[in-house]
């Protein structure tokens, strides 16, 4: 049984078919990339998996459990975490608080009006570990909105990781970044993948990043699956070259 199993997933907006009959499976510990030209339906596909949108038809299963109709926050509790194309953090809270909130939520404490000293200490230790892992320890007390673009991105990824997900969805993690920032984020993703044996699906435009990171690649075009396979196979695929790589270059 696959960790994530998507069957015949479709989503229409009026007459536009944004995602068209996509089937897709991710195994535990796998790092998968989704690529495709602009408007190929990549982000819509993510929105369907994470519960931001309801599909028009098809099914989504996580570890065999049907989650097609589950609200977003329940999917998070089941182990799906995501980041967004435009970084979504809590800009006027400190970086520490940004991480504290998902850590507490993951620990099932979101409704607690107070915490015991021991519990608070336990939580703080986890937050410190996440800060260190994301390379954010030095700026823990600063407002997240004041950080550089790359550090905000790292904050967002660590927030997702604080949820102890089984599946992490990253929507264009290096979008709008410079060379150095891109390298840092790629290194962070690789480290998470290797250390935590976390299954990651990422949407990415930067082909160097994709071929450097991904175990397997799915290519979407006009909402449908164009090809799927190892980076080598995708690079050699003529249809992909014609429809995407050739056209884009």
């Amino acid at each position, binding site marked *: 049984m696959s960790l994530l199993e998507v069957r015949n997933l479709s989503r229409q907006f009026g007459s536009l078919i944004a995602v068209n009959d996509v089937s897709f499976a991710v195994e535990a510990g796998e790092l998968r990339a989704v690529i495709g030209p602009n408007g190929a339906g990549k982000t819509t596909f993510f929105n369907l998996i994470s519960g*931001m949108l309801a599909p028009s038809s098809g099914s989504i299963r996580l570890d065999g459990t049907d989650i097609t109709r589950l609200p977003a*926050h329940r999917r998070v509790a089941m182990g799906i975490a995501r980041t*967004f194309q435009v970084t*979504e*953090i809590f800009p006027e809270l400190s970086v520490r608080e940004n991480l504290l*909130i998902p850590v507490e939520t993951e620990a099932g404490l*979101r409704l607690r009006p107070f915490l015991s000293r021991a519990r608070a200490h336990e939580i703080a230790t986890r937050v410190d570990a996440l800060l260190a892992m994301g390379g954010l320890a030095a700026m823990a007390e600063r407002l997240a909105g004041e950080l550089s673009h790359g550090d905000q991105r790292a904050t967002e990824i660590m927030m997702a990781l604080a949820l102890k997900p089984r599946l992490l969805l990253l929507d264009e993690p290096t979008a709008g970044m410079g060379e150095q920032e891109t390298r840092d984020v790629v290194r962070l993703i690789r480290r998470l993948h290797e250390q935590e044996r976390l299954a990651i699906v990422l949407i990415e435009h930067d082909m160097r990043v994709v071929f450097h990171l991904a175990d397997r690649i799915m290519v979407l075009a006009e909402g449908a699956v164009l090809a799927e396979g190892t980076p080598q196979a995708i690079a050699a695929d003529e249809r992909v070259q014609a429809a995407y790589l050739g056209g884009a270059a």
Partner: protein
Amino acid sequence: MKALEKYGPSIAVWIVLATVPLWFPLIGGYTALGTRVLVMALAAMAVNFLLGFTGVLSFGHAAYLGLGAYGAGMTIKYLLPSTPLGLLVGVLTGTVGAMIIGAMIVRLRGVYFAMVTIAFGQVFYFIAFRWVSLTGGDDGLTGWKRVPLDLGFTQIDILGNDRAFYYFVLVCLAASAGIMALLLRSPFGRTLLAIRENERRARFLGIPVDQHIWLSFVISAAFASLAGTLYAYLDNFVDPRAFYWQQSGEFVIMAVLGGMRSFWGPLIGAAIFEVLQDKASTYTDNWMSILGLFFVLVVVFFPRGVLGVLNRKPTR
């Protein structure tokens, strides 16, 4: 030093409030006005729990002020002359009302949410206005008085002694402020800040946003109805205007004027507003124009409020 920075403002606030009966008359105030400031401050802080710390605008909190006020007044008038019982019934009435209304509106956001809260406040206004046999209608609920507190070993005359009543209200405010501050520093409070900051992010961290907004709404309304019971005790009187949308708007302007991102902002806003109203209405018949102008000026020149300007933290 760090402790002073953290607790200093609160200590200062409590020293100033505890000594109001001593210094307020010296600058032209009177104790009952001080009490009124406390009551309105409590209501404004309740509104701000939702507005400033959850990012949800209710323009209809007069509904809960009114429910608390009528609940307390009618308990004493019809049921049992007991100040604490009236307080309890008033708070329960307002809280239950908020639970029901909250459940209907919690899926709405922004302007739409604000508009619906305003409209719901009117239902209670018309009920209080029309159900004359129960509420006294337009003339208000009269013929009852707050009752001295009986602690068993001693009595506190909050009815005849203005100062005693002031301190009774201050104790209520202190307890409420304490609970609100505690909640805001808790994991639950942090989820509310998260919703204020970025609702989508909060939802995709696993927080059921609607449920948390509902809770925040109910908590906020519970404190607003506590303010309502004290509001009724203030003059031993309540009329349908307690429910009117003008009152709701005044709470919001108090919060904004004082600084809605700060805990004590609404208190400062309430003090400025009530003292200004008290003074202005003795000098002019056109109080409404002054009030209106005041709203406009605050929005145009002072959107961050007093404490928002003092604390240089960026606000949107």
